């Protein structure tokens, strides 16, 4: 089951690799596929605990895999930016990019997810799991980042924000009732 999940999650990446040679705007295409994949997987990784509360259907054992897949897409997204967009140029990265709010907001989200990925294994997770609540901040920042990356936000940006608001809202509601 986990293998199937990983395979499905990797399909968009395989598609991106396959169409890369004929892509009209290849750097943009890679940024889009990895960015969209990261946000969608991040939202999906929040579903298991929502489902456990609302529909008594427990697939919490896939949460870690989903989270790590979301991180993998994020890592590819950041790599595409650093290697292809910034061409490993430190001036470009630090002076030209990190000053821009839309970029550093994304960078903060990446650091949070990196921390979570590194502390997602048994020993460390026991120690740091409380801090994994930071995923909500990472999600909010990532949604803002995707919204802000567009000249004009489109259907995708509004949809993921809506889904994010519902998932976070349900948590606030559950927390208040408890």
């Amino acid at each position: 089951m986990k293998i199937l999940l990983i395979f499905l999650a990797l399909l968009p990446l395989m598609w991106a690799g396959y169409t890369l040679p004929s892509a009209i705007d290849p750097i943009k295409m890679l940024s889009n596929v990895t960015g969209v994949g990261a946000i969608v997987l991040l939202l999906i990784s929040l579903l298991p605990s929502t489902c456990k509360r609302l529909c008594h259907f427990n697939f919490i054992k896939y949460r870690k895999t989903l989270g790590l897949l979301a991180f993998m897409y994020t890592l590819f997204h950041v790599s595409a930016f650093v290697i292809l967009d910034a061409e490993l140029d430190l001036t470009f990265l630090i002076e030209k990019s990190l000053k821009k709010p839309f970029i550093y907001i994304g960078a903060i989200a990446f650091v949070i997810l990196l921390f979570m990925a590194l502390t997602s294994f048994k020993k460390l997770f026991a120690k740091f799991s409380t801090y994994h609540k930071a995923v909500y901040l990472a999600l909010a920042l990532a949604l803002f980042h995707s919204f802000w990356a567009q000249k004009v936000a489109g259907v995708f940006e509004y949809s993921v924000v809506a889904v994010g608001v519902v998932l976070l809202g349900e948590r606030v509601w559950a927390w208040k009732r408890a």
Partner: protein
Amino acid sequence: MQNFNLEDITPEELFNARRHFLKLGAGALVSSSALTHLMAELPKQNALHYTPSTNPDKLILNTEEQATNYVNFYEFSTDKVAPVKMSQKMKTSPWSLGFFGEIKTEQMVEVDELIAKFGLEERIYRFRCVEGWSMVVPWIGFPLYKLLDYLEPNSNAKYVKFTTRHEPAMFPDQAKGIFASIKHPYVEGLRMDEARHPLTFIAVGMYGKRLLPQNGAPMRLVVPWKYGFKSIKSLDLIECVTEEPRNTWQDQNPDEYGFYANVNPEVDHPRWTQAKERVLGKLFKQPTLKFNGYEKEVASLYAGMDLRKYF
């Protein structure tokens, strides 16, 4: 890369006609009149006669496939690819443009009539989008100053204002009211000296053929030293005016987009740098040139102006 001459290639319509002709499998029976009949039925598209460009800057053309399948045409969609399919039913002929404002005689003129009046030439220009991608396109059209000479603007005419056609039945985003992606109709403007600059071009075609709908058929503006959003598509009105027109993107977000929108690697967009660009079809970026490589020709238009303030 692409050293062949565009005219040496069999035009698409002729090629298809020939295939159709061969498919009939009746070569022996067909008289020459049948062929003439076929030729006569060829769409008008074929009839662009123009002076080819010598490509003085030795620019490497992007492919027609790239330039016709990656567009910004918010009247259809904010997506880069969706407008290609969405625009195919667009009716671009007959189409007349309105010329109004501070000119000798206000009038409406058919696109074909304008072509006949001013003749056609090819211009191979760099095209740089504010989003960070770029391409090289062989446009076909005439310089805007020829049109302005014909319209005879009076001394009150300080700016030229351009407006895209407003026809919600043709452009779905215009029918969305408050849910439209941008305010319609799309408006652009140039200072009179910019409009009269010999590089400023009105295009009716590219790659040897009429413009496809998604590229702004039947007639659009091309200002090669400015970001692509200045090069307004599917023109409806050209007006000579006294005040600086408020262009659509400036109206949409004045902190990010200005009236001038000159390509400038030294002035960043608030959200991203403009130092480099992604040439369509390439995995590696290239440096962006000041005024998109037309500094020699146009820098004098902006002498003494603070280009950070007038971005």
